[in-house]
């Protein structure tokens, strides 16, 4: 039995890891290190209810009364700046050091920024609570919003801003938004929600530069068009927070590289959530999953690996959801280009449907728009159909 576990990153994956340690009767010291000053909070509402003003700060809190009993040693407001693999010590920005027998890396990801826009007022990214507070304040005083990137976060911000009464334009480099996660056909269907609700979508268009001296005034497109903007939100993906591990000997490869059981190449060090690129037997390669349910569930496996016990979890299929313009979008499974898509319930035109993705005649993924009941049944079916693939890389 080890005496101290250090959890680096105090958000969903970190908190879930701490809970999983105690659930497995780990009775050593658990130190949770987080660079944000806030106690763990939930990120999905930051682009939805919190940005809309219907959720309070309190609604975002992830911790519960039951967590008090976990007896965690919190180090909030201090970044980890290094890891020494020989002694498994985590060095903190305040000069202190946490010596641990086991380390859980859960430092997540940060929003990618548009180069050259630092210091220009009115330009936002959305990842943290502080980002959301600043963006909401700016949106309430604005008339024209331009969102760069029509991924999930960009689309959700556009949707929330429309509901707040702004004039919204979304600019997307790819010809079809969300083609990566949903495939071109269903990406196109979901993108139609923008037009339904009066948001202008300019797809297949690059951004040349942002115009403005101290505050943004317009977005200039690659084709020369200028879109007036009081506020710009850049939603062009996220980069894993792993730079602090450089030189530690932990293998970094589009995130912290782990096997299917969350083990890194360094004994006693596991990685979870958005910062981790875990071997996926299903995909046949390492995948960095950036979804809520994954960050919630994966630490159970990581903690079992750390403690040397059997993970004992049933297989799950990847799952994420989004909410746009009041529509509930849910997706489960693993999609690849070339999969066939079939609408099995409802219709795309009604914006309420269930689509099944098939490969070699077998269902591999499912997309639901405003079909929670049916979607849940399909998600379950995919889960029970998971083949018993070997877990090692």
């Amino acid at each position, binding site marked *: 039995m080890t005496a101290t576990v250090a959890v680096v990153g105090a958000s969903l994956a970190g908190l*879930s890891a701490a809970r999983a340690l105690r659930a497995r009767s780990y009775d050593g010291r658990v130190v949770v290190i987080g660079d944000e000053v806030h106690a763990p909070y*939930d990120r999905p509402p930051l682009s939805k209810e919190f940005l809309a003003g219907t959720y309070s700060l309190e609604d975002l809190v*992830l911790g*519960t009364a039951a967590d008090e009993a976990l007896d965690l040693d919190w180090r909030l407001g201090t970044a980890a700046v290094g890891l020494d693999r020989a002694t498994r010590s985590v060095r903190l920005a305040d000069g202190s050091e946490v010596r641990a027998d086991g380390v859980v890396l859960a430092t997540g990801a940060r929003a990618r920024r548009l180069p050259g826009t630092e210091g220009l007022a009115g330009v936002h990214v959305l990842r943290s609570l502080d980002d959301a507070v600043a963006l909401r304040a700016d949106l309430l005083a604005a008339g024209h919003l331009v969102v760069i990137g029509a991924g999930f976060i960009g689309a959700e911000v556009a949707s929330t801003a429309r509901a707040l009464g702004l004039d919204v334009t979304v600019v997307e480099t790819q010809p079809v938004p969300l083609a990566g996660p949903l495939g071109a056909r269903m990406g196109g269907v979901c993108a139609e929600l923008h037009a339904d609700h009066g948001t202008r979508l300019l797809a297949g268009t690059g951004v040349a530069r942002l115009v403005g001296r101290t505050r943004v005034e317009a977005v200039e497109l690659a084709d020369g068009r200028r879109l007036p903007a009081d506020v710009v939100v850049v939603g062009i993906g996220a980069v894993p927070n792993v730079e602090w591990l450089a030189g530690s000997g932990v293998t970094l490869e589009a995130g912290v590289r782990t096997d299917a059981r969350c083990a890194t190449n360094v004994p006693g060090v596991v990685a979870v959530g958005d910062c981790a690129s875990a071997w996926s037997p299903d995909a046949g390669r390492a995948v960095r999953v950036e979804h*809520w*349910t994954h960050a*919630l569930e994966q630490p159970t496996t990581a903690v079992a690996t750390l403690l040397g016990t059997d993970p004992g979890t049933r297989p799950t299929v990847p*799952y994420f*959801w989004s909410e746009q313009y009041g529509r*509930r979008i*849910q997706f489960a499974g693993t999609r690849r280009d070339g999969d066939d898509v079939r609408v099995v319930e409802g219709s795309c035109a009604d914006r309420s449907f269930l689509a099944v993705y098939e490969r070699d005649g077998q269902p591999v993924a499912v997309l639901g728009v405003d079909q*929670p*009941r049916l*979607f*849940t*049944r399909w998600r*379950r079916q995919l889960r029970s159909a998971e083949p018993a693939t070997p877990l090692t890389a």
Partner: protein
Amino acid sequence: MVPVCPTSALPPGEAIRVTDGVPAPIAVFNVDGEFLAIDDTCTHQDASLADGWLEGCEVECPLHASCFDLRTGMPSGPPAKAPVRTHPVTVVDGTVHVQVGGAAEGAA
């Protein structure tokens, strides 16, 4: 007591949402022949738990997958933090009845 449906209309593994005659929607489940009722609306957001997935004596919310114990109303894990209320169910002459806001309030 609010009549819900004939027992034959609610086979094992199924759920029904009750909206008439109740202050807030209630979900009634048939768990292997035993009828159990809870508030239908998830305490996290406004999903209908009657749309969820029944497994053993728990229902998994169709949106973000918190599981609620049908006997106690307690969520087993995030994102839901608060319990749903539970409601006593009786069968009278082959009809399922639910008693709203009865003795079996959600365990705290």
